[in-house]
Structure formats: structure tokens, C-alpha cells
């Protein structure tokens, strides 16, 4: 088994979870309902915790400590997809992003639970259980707000249109697709994308929202190779503000 292949896979998953977890935590104190502050905080804790566990797997493969990896890299060293780094915007955008992202990740972890790379398979089985609540939460809200008032429907539709090209960036092909597949580590981004499309289309069809025609969209790629929007570096600067005062100190 080639370690570079595994590391590339682990880094993008860990970075996705960390950055979106961080964004979710920004809702604390600002949600449209107290219950949503609490829900987004729970999802943030799950995601940041999941990223830490992934960085730990990387550490066992010889990478630096999770804290160092998370708090000391700059944007070009991050492999998260651009969807995760976009600002929270209004609640409709955060909700749509959460819906699109968490369905993709619920399926990703379901696939990885059968990975030939044992440590990842074990961890994915555990995470799968947490993700079930995230998709349940997204589903409930998309179904409700996607069929409620004229305003809620049009807000969700606009956010869906805006987020869709970025969400296709989740599935940016890895340079190691063939190897991951032949070694039984991961079936690949294309398989994941097809499963995801079927799932989200099914939910969208139960609302008054229209599924955008993805064949006309250009996916926002680049994140996996360290190419990011202007929003990531400020997020990282904020995240590391205290840690970098003295990275050797014990906080």
C-alpha cells in the first residue's frame, strides 16, 4: 500500500471536516432559533472531533501532531474543497451547504467503512453513526423550509443554485483514483458523486425546490490541490491567532 495515496485521501477528509466544523461553530449565538444554535454547535463538535481523529491517523503515518497540522499550515497546504470555506452567509446558505455536504460525507463514510485500510474503515464505522443525525437534521429542515413560504422557498432555491458548483468540488478527482480503487481503499469520487446525486435529488423532489441541471455547471475544483477562495486564509489566521502566539506553549 502506498502511503502517499492514503495520506492524500485522509488530508482532504480531515481538512473538509475541520473547516466546515469551524464554520458551523460560528453560528453559536447567532442562529435563527436557539435550537439551531445548539444543532449547529453539535455538528461543529462532531466535525472538528472527526478531523482530529483523521489527523491522528495521519500522525500515525508519520505526519506532525494533530494540533500542529491543524493550526500551523497555510491555505496552500490545505486540501478542503472550497464549499467548506465559504462564509456562512444567511441561514439558508448554511443549511443548503450542510445538506449537500453531509449527504456526500454520509455516503463517503459508508463506502469507507468497507475500506481495505483497516484504521480508516474502523473510524468510518464510528463516524457513520454521527453523520446519520446530521443528514436527519438537514432533511427535516430542507423538507420544511423547502415547502413553506414563498420567501423560504426562494431563499433556499437561490442558495442551492449558488452552492451547487461548489458542492461538485467535493468530488474533485484525486490523482490516485485508480490506485485507491485497485487496492480496495476507496471506490472513487465518481461513484460517490453518483450515489450522492441520487440521494439529494430524491429529497429535493419532495419539496418545491428545483434541482439545478448539473450538466450545465462548471465544478469549482482546486481546493484539493491547495487552491482556495479569498475566504480560507482569514479563517486560518483567526483559528491560529492564539496558538501562534507561542506554538510550543501548553495552552
Amino acid at each position, binding site marked *: 500500500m502506498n502511503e502517499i495515496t492514503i495520506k492524500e485521501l485522509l488530508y482532504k477528509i480531515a481538512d473538509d471536516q475541520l473547516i466546515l466544523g469551524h464554520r458551523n461553530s460560528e453560528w*453559536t449565538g*447567532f442562529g435563527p432559533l*436557539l435550537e439551531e444554535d445548539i444543532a449547529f*454547535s453539535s455538528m461543529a463538535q462532531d466535525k472538528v472531533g472527526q478531523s482530529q481523529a483523521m489527523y491522528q491517523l495521519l500522525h500515525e503515518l508519520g505526519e506532525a501532531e494533530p494540533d500542529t497540522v491543524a*493550526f500551523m499550515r497555510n491555505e496552500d497546504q490545505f486540501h478542503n474543497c472550497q464549499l467548506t470555506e465559504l462564509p456562512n452567509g444567511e441561514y439558508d446558505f448554511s443549511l443548503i451547504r450542510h445538506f449537500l455536504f453531509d449527504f456526500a460525507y454520509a455516503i463517503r463514510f459508508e463506502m469507507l467503512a468497507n475500506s481495505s485500510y483497516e484504521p480508516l474503515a474502523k473510524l468510518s464505522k464510528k463516524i457513520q453513526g454521527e453523520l446519520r443525525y446530521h443528514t436527519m437534521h438537514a432533511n427535516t429542515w430542507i423538507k420544511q423550509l423547502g415547502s413553506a413560504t414563498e420567501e423560504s422557498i426562494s*431563499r433556499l432555491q437561490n442558495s442551492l443554485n449558488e452552492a451547487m458548483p461548489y458542492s461538485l468540488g467535493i468530488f474533485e478527482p484525486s490523482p490516485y483514483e485508480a490506485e485507491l480503487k485497485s487496492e480496495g481503499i476507496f471506490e472513487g469520487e465518481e461513484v460517490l458523486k453518483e450515489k450522492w446525486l441520487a440521494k439529494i435529488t430524491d429529497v429535493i423532489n419532495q419539496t418545491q425546490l428545483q434541482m439545478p441541471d448539473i450538466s450545465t455547471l462548471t465544478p469549482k475544483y482546486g481546493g484539493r490541490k491547495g487552491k482556495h477562495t479569498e475566504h480560507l486564509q482569514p479563517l486560518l489566521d483567526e483559528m491560529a491567532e*492564539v496558538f501562534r502566539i507561542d506554538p510550543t506553549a*501548553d*495552552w
Partner: protein
Amino acid sequence: MYGGGNTFESIKATGLENEDPIKLAEFEARIERGEKIEPHDWMPQLYRKQLIRMIEQHAHSEIIGALPEGTWITRAPGFKRKLALMAKVQDEVGHAQLLYGAAETLGKPREQMLDDLVSGKSKYSNIFNYPAFTWADSCFISWLVDAGAIVNQLANARGSYGPYCRALERICAEESFHLKYGHHCVIHLATGTEKQREMMQAAINRWWAPMMHFFGPADKASVHSEILMRWKVKMSSNDEQRNQFLDMYVPKIWELGFTIPDPKLGKNEATGKWEYTEPDWEEFKRVINGDGPCNAERLAVRRTAEERGRWVRQALLAPKTQYVAPLA
């Protein structure tokens, strides 16, 4: 967190002359026997009003208190702190949810309470009108402001209104973890680098006056509240709570090698009471009446959150509502 320092206004008219004297006597006897009053039980108007006011203030303090600490969630140094602080502030928002629920049992809807918060009609704990400049400030809040709140809440948990007491019992159990988290953070700063120690000392210097204000004006200057004490709405005096806090935490602060910016602070062994420089109560009044460093900012944030979330709440209220063009 984050209750404590409830502000009670002087009761100009008790309205007790309009209450049924037999029911009133029965009500007072129940409280005297240590029974809890439940939402559907008879209660005097004044009791209902004062409780709504107190529980509502407490709930507001939880959500406003989440703001200065919340700023540090996205800046917390390292996974351990980041995860713990997220969970901690989430607890505080959860406490607000519990407390608004307890206040709603007395007949005031949550939406109305939140409207009164953003309009400035109802108060919240004064201490959150001060800014948290550094990570060490957030550690001070987690440890010592929470500690102060626990002193207040443990007392109130013995009060007479059932739903409030039950909410407080759950809240106090979570608070004890917050206190441990905060203490742990402060110990790390105290035993860390020179820079970390300086950060923590500066935070103590900044927060000491607001902390002394936290428990409210001195007993001799504060509003008479015998009736609230008798009805077990207010469970101990401001000075008693302040003294209890100083007794429990000043030695711990000194033990870590920090100083407290009050040369007069010390325990009088003869009386068992702490002596200190009288806090500036003029400043307290100024801040509580809206003129503190962060009052406007805190309320503006809350107001923005309320406004931005209105469409979500409306969509929940009327999921089937369709726009109908008027018939000209």
C-alpha cells in the same frame, strides 16, 4: 453560567390587598413548609411578575453571555480547547432554552421575552457588557464568572418555584464541568510561559471590578426584598453571595501566584467576612442603564440575529401559507 446579580427594582405597590387573603395565606404556608409552587397552582400576581422578571433576566444572561466567550471558539488554541469551549458555550445556549421554557410556564412567550431583550426593556447580567480582549479573558469568564453564577444558582435552586428549581438543578450539574474547564485553562496559563502569565494577570486586573459588581449592590444600599425572601424568590443577599465567592476563590487565585487589584482585600478572621474596597456603584448603575463598553454591541448582535432569523421562524409558524394576490 451566567445568572447572578439579578437586579430587583423596589416594589412600590405589592397589590397584595387585591389578592384573596385565604388563598394568599395558603400559598405562604406551602412555601413555609418547603413545598414547590407549580405552574397551575394559585399564586399572587406579584410572585408571578417577579419570577418572570428574574428567570427571564437569567435566560437573557445565558445567550448574551455566549457572545464574549463565543468570540474565542474560533480562536481557541488547539483541538482540546476548541472542542471544550464549543461544548461549553453550547451548554449556555441550552440553559437559555431551559430557562425560557421555565419562564413560559408563567405565561410569557419566548418571542416576547426576546423582543424585550433587544428593545432594552429587560436586563441581563451586567458583566457581559465588558469586552473579552484576549484568550485569558475567556478563561477568566469560564472559571470565575461561572463560579460566581454557581454561587447564585445553587442558592436559587432551593427556591419555591418548581420549574425554575428543576431547570437550575440541571444547569448546575453542567456548570460544574465549566468550572473545571475554566480552572484548567487558568492553571495552564499560570504555569506556562511569562507571556501566558502576563495575559492572565491582565485579565484578572480587567475583570475584577465587574466581578465584584456581579453580585449586585451592597445590601445596605439595595432594594428591600423581604417579601421576595419570604416567598423564596430571592434566596440569599448580594453581600452573602459576594462573601461566599471571595471565600471560595480568592485563595485559589492567590495560590496560582496572581495578584488581585484591591489592596484592601482580605479576610477578617474575627468576623469570618471578607473586607474589600467598595466597588464603584456609580459605574455599575451607568453600565446597567446602558452606558457600558459593550451594551450597544451586544444588543446589536442579538437584534441582527433576531432579524436575520425572522423568515425561518415565520416559515415554521405557517408552513402552508401561500402568497395570495389581493383582489385589487
